[in-house]
């Protein structure tokens, strides 16, 4: 496949049309895998011998945490594409992804706190990984606030793109700073290839289904929200043109 053909989707019309074609399928797939994964996880998994039934929270906590980071990473990539190739769809996709990232971060934080209450005996501990997500949450807030504050859409796209890149570096630094600041109580990454013993097989399959569901949901929402942003931009441009006469 010719890689250059990919850039065609940077055209707002082509993008919108493709979204209209693909969105129903992605949405259905997302819904099905989310329902299957969560029902499987909630009803048909055994309790863990250490954590009891709280182990069922990983089906929400792990995928949302992964998506919280992936969403930011996607924003970083689309911001770079915007700065380098000036494709508006790219900038708008970054704008569209940020609120999804916020919700994912919130879910990760909330489930983490709720899980921590019986496990650690406290709602909130300044554990490095929870703290990192809190900082990520602040970055998301700043990013969205900057988009909202600026009137001119291209200026907003430029400034938020730079903020996203600079923010990524500092988020990365914060991660290490926080690790250094408090060597914590979180168990190692719940899902990683080299630590398979952490998550037993009975949990891993529904977990994979849930992760797929979250990814598909993210993709569907980004498609939908980006198309919304394209429509808004078009409306704004037409209104501005009307005012010019």
């Amino acid at each position: 496949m010719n890689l250059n053909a990919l850039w065609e989707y940077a055209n707002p019309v082509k993008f919108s049309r493709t979204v209209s074609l693909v969105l129903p399928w992605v949405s259905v797939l997302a819904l099905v895998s989310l329902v299957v994964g969560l029902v499987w996880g909630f009803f048909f998994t055994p309790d863990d011998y250490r954590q009891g039934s709280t182990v069922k929270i990983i089906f929400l906590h792990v995928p949302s945490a992964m998506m919280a980071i992936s969403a930011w990473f996607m924003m970083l990539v689309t911001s770079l594409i915007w700065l380098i190739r000036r494709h508006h769809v790219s900038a708008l996709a970054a704008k569209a992804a940020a609120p999804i990232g916020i919700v994912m971060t919130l879910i990760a934080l909330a489930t983490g706190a709720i899980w921590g209450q019986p496990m650690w005996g406290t709602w909130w501990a300044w554990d490095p990984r929870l703290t990192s997500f809190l900082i990520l949450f602040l970055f998301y807030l700043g990013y969205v606030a900057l988009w909202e504050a600026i009137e001119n859409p291209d200026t907003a796209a430029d400034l938020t793109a730079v903020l996203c890149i600079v923010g990524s570096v500092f988020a990365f630094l914060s991660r290490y700073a926080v690790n250094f600041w408090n060597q914590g109580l979180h168990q190692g990454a719940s899902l990683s290839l080299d630590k398979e013993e952490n998550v037993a097989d009975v949990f891993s399959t529904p977990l994979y289904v849930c992760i797929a569901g979250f990814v598909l949901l993210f993709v569907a929402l980004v498609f939908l929200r980006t198309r919304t942003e394209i429509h808004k931009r078009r409306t704004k441009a037409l209104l501005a043109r009307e005012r010019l006469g």
Partner: protein
Amino acid sequence: MIPDLGKYADTVLSSYAVSILLLVLLVAVSIRAARKARIELEQVEGRRNG
């Protein structure tokens, strides 16, 4: 219907409730915004072409 969650029932149920609520809210807000943006655009386009 609900499986035996033992002493952690509140914890697990509230996690699922909070998460699903947030996800549904996000989807609802996105869909509403999409509909609103589409209607506004159609109005402006209509005025322009009409």
